[in-house]
């Protein structure tokens, strides 16, 4: 099974499991019909959504299996096309034109960025906006900076993180009247 079909199957299985769990969840929704039930109650639309999702995910799984059988012995010969971000339309670029937007994904940086975000949000109210933001900015900017440039930029990154955080705090709390948690500094 090629990568594309595996992805389709994965999507189908995920949605099937999700819609099944969602449908199960609708049984716990309470209903209220003081004037008699002339139409739908609070669980009807979720049941409709869950039911439709279950049917469609089942059809996606089945169609993927059929596609797998049909394309088992063939090779993929697709001409590269340029699509918009929503994949509404794809066109073949003019001959010789190549957009240099092909990026190599580095999941390690992505995973670490998520970890930093989790820590940032977890500490946001506990230690306050200023400290958590300074730590987050220093950690994330260091992560995104090229390894060989980190040492050279270290002082700038630290000073920038402190300066910009304090500036944001002052602007938002003094001039834009927003409340930001002070945490241990309060």
């Amino acid at each position, binding site marked *: 099974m090629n990568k594309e079909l595996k992805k389709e199957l994965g999507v189908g299985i995920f949605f099937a499991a999700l819609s099944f769990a969602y449908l199960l969840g609708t049984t716990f929704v309470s209903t209220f019909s003081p004037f008699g039930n002339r139409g739908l109650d609070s669980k009807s639309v979720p049941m409709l959504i869950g039911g439709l999702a279950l049917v469609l995910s089942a059809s996606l799984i089945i169609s993927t299996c059929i596609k797998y059988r049909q394309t088992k012995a063939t090779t993929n010969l697709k001409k590269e096309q340029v699509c918009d971000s929503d994949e509404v339309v794809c066109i073949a670029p003019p001959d010789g034109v190549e957009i240099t937007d092909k990026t190599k994904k580095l999941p390690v940086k992505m995973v670490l960025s*998520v970890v930093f975000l989790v820590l940032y949000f977890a500490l946001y109210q506990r230690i306050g906006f200023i400290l958590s933001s300074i730590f987050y900015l220093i950690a994330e900017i260091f992560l995104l900076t090229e390894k060989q440039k980190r040492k050279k930029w270290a002082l700038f990154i630290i000073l920038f993180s402190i300066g910009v955080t304090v500036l944001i705090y002052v602007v938002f709390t003094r001039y834009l009247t927003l409340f930001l948690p002070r945490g241990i500094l309060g």
Partner: protein
Amino acid sequence: MFSMLVAGFGSVFTDPLSIIMVFLGTVVGIIFGALPGLTTVAGLSMFLPVTYAMASGTGLSMLTAIYIGGISGGLISAILLNIPGTPSSIATCFEGSPMAKKGEAGKALGLGVFASLIGTVFGISLMIVLSPTLAALTIKFGPWEYFSVTIFALTLISALCGKSVTKGVLSALFGMMFATVGLSPIDSAKRFTFGYLQLTSGFNLLAVLVGLYAISEVLSTAGSDKPPAKVLAYKMKGLGFSIKDISGQWFNMLRSSLIGLGIGILPGIGGSTSNLIAYSVAKNSSKYPEKFGTGIPDGIIASESSNNASIGGAMIPLLTLGIPGDGATAILLGGFMLHGMQPGPLLFQTNGATVYHIFASMILATFFMAIVMYAGMRFFVKILKVPSNILLPLIVVLCSIGAFALNNRVFDMWSLLLFGLIGLAMAKAGIPGPPFILGFILEGAFETNLRRGLEYSNGNFLEVFTRPISAIFLTLTILSLVLTLMRQYQSNKRLASSKN
């Protein structure tokens, strides 16, 4: 309408803060549009909390200025870096970069800015004319009409986005599932709260939108190893082009603007789609299609006038029906709601003065955009060298402030992260994002109007087919689904035959 617009201009020009914010918004938008990896939506998400304390007209004018600047700014990196600054400028790369390589970067930039100006003015003018008329029509809508419009919008976007209708509809249903969390409409029954108090009010629209668009974008860019692209040299005298360069382009500009406007009106998609379609149409109807790709003005003009005309187009369904025309207008919908305004047919009656203030600011922002881009091109080209490692974490911090300030609770920040990860996973799995967004936004209207309609008709669902407007929308729904399925079947067949 004209007197309201004059009053709108009056309120903008008598308020210096409004003018400053529109100017600032335009510059910020151009910067976000120009920087590859950052989009208009990220700019809107970042500056949303800045508008919290402003008057609704001023705040929303700033956001629309960011939108206009953002769509236009994408052409700078498309031409000088050969990287589209925003998805709306993909087709600009096809001609812009070859022109820059030929030493005509100044001309390409000048033509791009001019086409952006014409496209935006065209789109906004038609938005100003059409929106009040459509709002007057939609005010007569009852529950069945609204129900059928939501069904039409959801199926259309599901059918258009991505390569599979099934995945598109599943994405919309996925979004609807999240929207059912909290209290149900009409009878306020708790649904999927799992005894957790914070979930009673459901997921905040802005936290969902900013998470899906901005956070997932930041995480995705953080994970990419992009070598710094070389900025091509440019020289720009005056406007960068001569009258002769555009004399034969007026029809191309008009046609592309119309395409942009039409695509923009369709729910959920905008400039990112229209620029490719307009480019294709310009190429296919050209007397010299073989020259496309070698660096000719036609392609830049088609791409830039269409993506900018989509701005006005995307605002029309937002203002008249409360249905966003693209990602940026989805954030604007959140902005409207945050400022206590509900986009839809009643908007012109309840907040007419503010709406015309925004219209006037949009016209002002359009001219600011052109002036700033012509006068400050040197500055924006320098901005291209700003490293994204500094900007990305800053966007996260500002988006987090925006999420926290919604209700002063960290729960909305966790929602931000959750939907950021969902957006990332969906992109990886090839599940289109726009149907999810529309599903989340429209579930409330879908459910409320379906239940209301059935209450009014004593449980008779067939009434939806007997009302002319709802019958038209349902017919269009079926038509769009059938056409898409046919298109999908034919392309699958073509693919299978090409493989054999």
